[in-house]
């Protein structure tokens, strides 16, 4: 995930995220109150919500093979 922070004139910061680096065609944008530090702290929350809401777009890691148990 790649993100970019852009301070706004109304004392908010715009957060733009992009998942192209993960092979997922998904971009998101939100605004948080405060400066870049507050926005940077919120990036992880925004990322988690997007992954939750659009989990169908993200490949599911293969389930581990069950170990064979010798009888």
């Amino acid at each position, binding site marked *: 995930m790649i993100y970019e922070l852009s301070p706004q004139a109304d004392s908010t910061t715009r957060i733009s995220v992009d998942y192209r680096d993960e092979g997922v065609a998904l*971009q998101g944008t939100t*605004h948080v109150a405060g400066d870049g530090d507050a926005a940077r*702290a919120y990036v992880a929350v925004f990322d988690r919500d997007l992954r939750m809401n659009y989990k169908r777009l993200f490949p599911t890691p293969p389930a581990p093979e069950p170990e064979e148990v010798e009888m």
Partner: protein
Amino acid sequence: MADIALGQLLHTAGDNTLSQTDGALHGYMRGTDGTATRTIKTDANGNITISPDSGLGTEATLAALEVLLTSLDGKVATDAKLEAARALLASLDGKVATEAKLEAVRTLVALAQTNTSDIFQAVKLRDWGKEATLANAKNVLDAISAAVAARATEATLESANQALASLDGKVATDAKLEAARLLLASLNGKDFATQTTLAAVLAKLADPATATKQDAAKGVLDAISAAVAARATEATLAAVKTALTDGSQKVQLSGSKVRIASAPATGVKTVTGTAAEVFAGTSRKPGRSRLEIANRHPALAIRVGPAGVTDTTGRSVGPLATLALDMDPMSDVPIYAVSEAGALTVEVFEA
């Protein structure tokens, strides 16, 4: 040089000093011409004799030469005089009549003296005047020549004549000049503007509004004129007033009622202590007319409001409560939410 046999000379002198060998010295001096040695001859007195064949003059020859040189004493020019004479002759180069010319002149003079014709007699008897007289005459002629050269040409005189003719009738009379003088005297001492002031006035007069400015002003005036011409008349305004007040005016409303016109978006949102936008998808849904926020936490509340919302301000949405907001689809208004304590998840519905 004579080759002297010094050994034989000393032998002959014997025990005598060399000065006492007078005569014997000459008698034993020898010389050579390069081929053979010969004894130098002396006369009876012991003087060395020199043969005339050696190239020297005899006494008689030398005496004649002395007489000749003495006769030339004081008669030979110095180098300076000779140079002066050469320069004088050089200056005469080309100026001296040739023998042929001199002969021709001589013949002509002789002819005049012997010829009795009137012409030759007149020439011979003519008083040609003295040099002084001729010089005076020359001076007079030179003065006349200079005066003639300095006088105005015909063209100049004609131009002057025309100029004077053009002034005919234009020259003021004494009376007019006196009147003008009196007028000028009356102006003396008056407080006229200086050249600087006049120049400033001239500059102002020379810089009126430009054509561009005038065109711009004309455009404004034309717009005002058009607006005035297009405005409703008093009668029209009165009719409109009547129609609005008596209920006869029909009104057509435009726009639409707020309804869900597109597929809604749903999602979950984590609300933290940082006020963040609330929406269901990846960003605020464009043209949304409905926003619902359902707090599913059983104990914590959130606050909803503008960007400046805090955990103590804004609209409170308590545990398990839902906030529904009707939005203006034409206005893209962001809605922020902040948790009163900790982080909690809410369900969002946008349509």
